[in-house]
């Protein structure tokens, strides 16, 4: 799972340089470079500042790379059943044929 962002694209759209964006959010140019290259994950405060400066929603600026994500699904609640499913199937389908076979 990797935190990605579209800062470079959005910054270029607004024709801002890395230094200008850095000055606007109060960090160094190297920090902006690191964030754009996904080397450094900014704090929530810095992320919100960037979103504010670029006039975007933070969800559009930062997103998770969902390709390699392992989401743990919540356990589905099922009603308790008596016996295993296989045994139930056996009862339904095969009791009659078994009985017929025994009769023979």
């Amino acid at each position, binding site marked *: 799972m990797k935190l990605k962002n579209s800062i470079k694209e959005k910054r270029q759209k607004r024709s801002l340089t890395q230094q200008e964006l*850095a000055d606007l959010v*109060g*960090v*160094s*140019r*190297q*920090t902006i470079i*690191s964030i754009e290259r996904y*080397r*450094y994950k*900014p*704090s929530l405060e*810095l992320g919100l500042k960037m979103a504010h400066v670029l006039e975007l929603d933070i969800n559009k600026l930062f997103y998770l790379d969902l390709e390699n994500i392992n989401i743990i699904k919540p356990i589905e609640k099922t009603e308790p059943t008596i016996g295993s499913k296989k045994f139930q199937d056996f009862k339904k389908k095969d009791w009659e044929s078994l009985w017929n076979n025994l009769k023979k």
Partner: protein
Amino acid sequence: MTSINISKKEIYIIIDIVFSILFIIIFLPFFYNNSINHLTNSEVISKVIQVMIFSIIFFTTTYALLEIKFKRKIIKDERDYLISSKTYKLSYLIYNICLFWIIGHYLDGNSFKNNGLEFDDSIIFILLIVITGVSIVKSSYQLYLYRTS
């Protein structure tokens, strides 16, 4: 040919590394000599004064040149604090290991004299080696983090 883009912060770190290396080359042989030959106090004091003068001249000239070259002020942000905390953590760990090693070295040797622990002159040399060594490792790690993280 592509040029390496180095920031002002990285140059500050390189200056620290250069100072440590110069200190090892210029001054440590004297303290090593002191640990063997037991030089007089006045000789040691004059050397310490030399070290102080050298450090003041070195840092004032390099920092002045740097300020002339890079006029923009350094902004310290959250990434700097993160890198600093990582490097100080590493240097603290190395200091601890070295100090335990030094204590073990002195307890193991015949340093218990006259019902007390008596350090010989080699302690100054060993401590200087540890300080400069840790400084070089810390600065190198800091530089590595600035370039890669």
